[in-house]
């Protein structure tokens, strides 16, 4: 379990480094491939 947690920790460090727009906050509930991020939630 600890080994997998260690892997997850490494993955978390990777995604933490993503160059995200700090104002954008869209998650899965509205996820629809092919559509732009909804401006109303930025």
């Amino acid at each position: 379990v600890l080994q997998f947690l260690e892997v997850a920790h490494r993955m978390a460090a990777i995604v933490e480094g993503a160059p995200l727009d700090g104002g954008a906050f869209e998650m899965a509930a509205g996820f629809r491939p092919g559509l732009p991020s909804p401006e109303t939630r930025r």
Partner: protein
Amino acid sequence: VSFDAFTPAHRIADQIRTGKVTAETVTGDYLARIATLNPTLNAFTDVTAGRALAQARGIDAARARGEALGPLAGVPFAVKNLFDIEGLPTRAGSKINRERAPASRDGELVERLSAAGAVLLGGLNMGEYAYDFTGENAHDGACRNPHDGARMAGGSSSGSGSATAAGLAPLSLGSDTNGSIRVPSSFCGVFGLKPTYGRLPRTRSFPFCDSLDHLGPFARDVTDLALAYDAMQGPDEHDPACAQRVVEPCLPTLKDGIGGLRIAVAGGHFSTEGMPDAQAAVAAVAKALGAGATVDLAGAGLARAAAFLITNGESAAFHLDRLRARAHDFDPETRDRFLAGAMQPSAWYIQAQRVRRWFHDQVMRVFEDVDLIVAPATPCVAPLIGQKTLELRGETVPLRPNLGIFTQPISAIGLPVVAVPVFGAGLPIGVQVIAAPWREDLCLRAAFALEQAGVCVARPPALG
């Protein structure tokens, strides 16, 4: 056995429609082949012989009465055992689920294929709760690769890949959260379609990770893949993730060719340097499609990490009660990953979902300049059953998580993909043909062109 088990599904339907063979004969022959070969391959976990023969006789009777038959009338198929099959507990590769009440109704996609005349032969082996790329299963045993029984079929839709490749069914269904259609397609040398996220309803199938789960077909023939896909399309109000889109059939444009399509090869994260089998396969497909340019899907590594965290977080939450009460009844290979997922901070999950959206927006910009992207499906051909590590770019890495290195970033943003088989000197390996959302038609057109050119053909394995 009198019927050629490697006859494409659309030809089987034609032969039944024109009276050259009866549906009962076809079904009986496939059941006999399953009885002979499944003890070795371990692809089927349930065989629904009585139901299949009854349906086949019904099709023959309908034909005798002069009734119109569906496009898949009499075509046998089988489904990964996470699809509900009326009268059976939906085991989803697990021990625990066998105690569930039998399903009262078939899964939505099973019903749609049955409505088109297809005949269900049974349920197929899979990795426990779909958390697997190998096809190994502590409860049901490893599903074997028909091209070399010592090797993995790939997972988690192991039985779908193995049964389709071995001619135990011309069509099958699987699921793909991180690569579970594309990895077994690659290892078993068949075609597999992972449609756009939200295209096919998942109603009455057992979930793994709701925001990444896709369902789709396997076949040895691209026309069959399109035929099955078209029969399964359409909205369904019971799956909240299912887009309420009208049916957009792919069969009418399947033979339109690739003229005018802008096709490029994925570089960067998808580089096959140091992976000779994958490199040769991508080169063969790229050459046949005239894909000279390379595109960089910048952020693919981030998307893979995001998919890992989303999968762990959602699946662990879904299984939390089972983990608390029945941890000892899980496959040890999946249990420890679920337990680790249960301890992930929620901030990791939320950041991963944001990264997913960000990567999606990056890739949508790439699709302004290309129509199709070619990428490897797996870094290697099928490993040996029991193998634990993999040589990847000069490094020894754990095998299980790294079999999905090329598939995870693509499913993370829900793009449609057809995995196409390439046979080199030995074992098959797959290549992903990827399109923008909702353009499954382009993936299938390219796959058909590759099949016609003889570059991607699902060769029958040498079985007894």
